């Protein structure tokens, strides 16, 4: 299957989209997206610091 990137406007079939989403989800499970996880952790800490005890 030809993968799409955000610069590629190839029309994907429903099956191709389904397979691609499966692959993205699988990668997410394996923790291969470290930059995203690091971002989430930074945001999580920032919100925790800002939370009032009375919230």
């Amino acid at each position, binding site marked *: 299957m030809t*993968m*799409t*990137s*955000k*610069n*590629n*406007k*190839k029309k*994907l079939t429903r099956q191709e*989209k389904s397979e*691609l*989403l*499966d*692959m*993205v*989800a699988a*990668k*997410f*499970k394996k923790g*291969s*997206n470290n*930059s*995203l996880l690091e*971002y*989430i952790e930074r*945001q*999580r800490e920032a*919100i*925790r610091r*800002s*939370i*009032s005890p*009375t*919230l």
Partner: protein
Amino acid sequence: MSHFTDTYEIRSKISERDVHFFFFSEGKKNIIKVVLYYYVLDLQEYPLYNLALSDYDISTNSYHIDKTTDNGDAYKVFHTVLATIPCFFSIWQNAMLMVQGSDSTQEFQDNCRLTCKKRCPLAECRNAHRRINIYRNYVNKNFDSLTKEYIFYGGIIDIDNQLLKVEYNKENNYRIVLLKKRKFDDHDI
């Protein structure tokens, strides 16, 4: 929030306590979007989650959080994100969800001033807060029907830079909106 017909097909993924939804934005480009619901901490009797939206570039395996992509399908993307909210609450029924825009941060405004041609006063960036305004406008416009299922709160940052939760008032321009699923025995707040 589940009544939209113009939404993209979504795929969910539960990763420990976090929940993620994936979909294809099909506008000028094909873009994989990820709606992130990530756990922050336990607040009294409920877990607090934050909502974020990211692009995923499969060619570089990189994520671009809260990026403005101008893909020509903003409403369909917005409706798809809204449609994930009932799905999220079906998984974490007791959660409190926090919604805020990445363009509401001081960092966004500082960066905006570096390249922006608008001559905004120092205390006001006209490009800021657009995202939360879209969510808030939706809540305000549909408040009566939404409050049958959800309880909304405004989030206010006090002088000590601490987040306070207040009763939602449609007249206030909150930069943070919090919501939780209404339970059978919940009253107004």
